[in-house]
């Protein structure tokens, strides 16, 4: 039986077109040969699938016909979950809103620029604060050290701290800030000629940030008469003042005015002065135009530019008086005769040269 014939038979068999005898014969054949049996099943499955496929197509067509009658568009509009009106407004009009916002920002900026608001002090203040912010990391490092070691100033290239001090007696008493020598193991002072002398801390008044050192070095010779006096009375506002100190290795001069009779947060200990001061300036004498010591340079406020402080000289005087007599070999004779008064500023500074020292602090 060839393939074609067999196929014919299978179809007739499946369609029930066989006579009873043929049917019996074919079923017998099917039982005998599994190959024929598989063929029958296969053909049955295949035609069934073909039928199902066409049924599916028909159903899809029916459904499509039904679907075409539905107004999907309106329905979709109705059923869409609508976001809040703000979001919708943004979605529908975002380009317009963006343009409007840009114009508004531009207009505001233009008005600010034209009215000078941009260059007002407020703006400058902010810019300066940013600058201070940049410096802050650096100062924070210093501050860390300061909290451990007091507010002593730091030298750039050595591990010690340093500040400035000035002689108050010819036998080697030096006034400086307490924060300069706070926590020191040993203190040296260096004169303008570059010669160092060992000094010891004689007396301190931490609350007033004042320290009195005494040069104990055997090589130290008497300084000679101190040319300046220490002023008892308080200086007036706007009085011209200057300072002379060692923020670097060479002496540094700067001048300014007394800008306030009170210091930080209204502290009556300090003057505010308009002299720019730097680390290392601490302990420098603040002189008035006649060559009187009116204060000791103390520090500045990091948050604000141009706010610098100096301890009033009256506190220095009281500190000198408070030195216990048993720590002194000799009674302190403060100079009462001011030899700088008649001199020009240049000459005053030249004279000061010998009496202002670098205070070096070792720890």
């Amino acid at each position, binding site marked *: 039986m060839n393939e074609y014939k067999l196929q014919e038979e299978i179809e007739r068999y499946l369609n029930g077109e066989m006579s009873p005898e043929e049917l019996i014969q074919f079923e017998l054949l099917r039982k005998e040969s599994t190959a024929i049996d598989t063929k029958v099943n296969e053909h049955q499955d295949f035609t069934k699938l073909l039928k199902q496929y066409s049924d*599916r197509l028909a159903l899809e067509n*029916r459904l499509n016909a039904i679907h075409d009658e539905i107004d999907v568009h309106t329905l979709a509009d109705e059923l869409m979950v609508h976001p809040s009106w703000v979001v919708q407004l943004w979605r529908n009009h975002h380009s317009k809103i963006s343009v409007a916002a840009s114009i508004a920002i531009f207009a505001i900026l233009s008005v600010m620029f034209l009215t000078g608001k941009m260059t007002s002090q407020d703006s400058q203040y902010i810019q300066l604060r940013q600058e201070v912010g940049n410096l802050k990391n650096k100062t924070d490092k210093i501050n860390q050290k300061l909290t451990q070691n007091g507010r002593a100033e730091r030298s750039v290239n050595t591990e010690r701290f340093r500040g400035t001090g000035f002689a108050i007696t010819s036998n080697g008493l030096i006034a400086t800030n307490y924060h300069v020598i706070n926590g020191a193991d040993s203190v040296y002072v260096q004169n303008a000629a570059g010669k160092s002398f060992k000094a010891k801390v004689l007396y301190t008044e931490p609350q007033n940030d004042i320290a009195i050192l005494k040069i104990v070095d055997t090589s130290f010779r008497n300084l000679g008469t101190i040319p300046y006096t220490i002023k008892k009375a308080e200086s007036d506002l706007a009085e011209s003042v200057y300072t002379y100190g060692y923020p670097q290795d060479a002496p540094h001069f700067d001048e300014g005015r007394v800008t306030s009779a009170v210091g930080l947060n209204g502290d009556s200990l300090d003057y505010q002065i308009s002299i720019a001061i730097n680390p290392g300036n601490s302990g420098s004498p603040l002189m008035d135009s006649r060559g009187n010591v009116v204060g000791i340079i103390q520090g500045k406020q990091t948050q604000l530019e141009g706010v610098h402080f100096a301890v009033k000289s009256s506190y220095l005087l009281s500190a000198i008086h408070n030195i216990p007599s048993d720590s002194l070999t000799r009674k302190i004779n403060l100079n009462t005769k001011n030899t700088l008064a008649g001199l020009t500023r240049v000459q005053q500074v030249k004279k000061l040269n010998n009496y202002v020292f670098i205070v070096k602090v070792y720890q």
Partner: protein
Amino acid sequence: MNKELKDSIPTDSEVILGILNNSESVLKRMYVAYFPMVLQLIINNNGTADDAKDIYQEAVIILYNKIKAGDFELSSKLKTFIYSICRRLWLKRLSHMSRFGGDIRDFQEHMHVEDEVEKQNDMDIQFSKMESALQLLGEPCKTIMEDFYIHNLSMQDICERFGYTNADNAKTQKYKCLQRLKKLFFQQK
């Protein structure tokens, strides 16, 4: 949902009987009644109205076949069944398009229908094979196959339609066509 649509929603048993009896009107009422629900699901979950149509029709076909096959037990509301099937199908479609954000916005209660969907999926693969096989078969074989096996025309009718001189020629032609169709069908992976 529209009020008039609600009014015309056929009851669940009505639908089953209607489909078993090939009632066109019941099928239509059912289709119209539940489409908005599916549309709502799809368009609010990153889909379009066309996606909704595809998904919904697939679901209706699943339901239809299940009822026709006689193994449909109404264990839940028909509405829930349709919604669940559509939800499942849409999740699958979304993940294929990798547009699924892991979260679907639901509007109805739903149940597990994974089995139904898988079964349907197998059938769909078979059908798409058949479709492409028929496509490749070309005329006049395709029409002969359709006429004989689908429309159950006799060989005599086919003979006349295609102008064969005798039924034997037509039979030989039909045999060759069937062999080719089978070959094309089973060749596909």
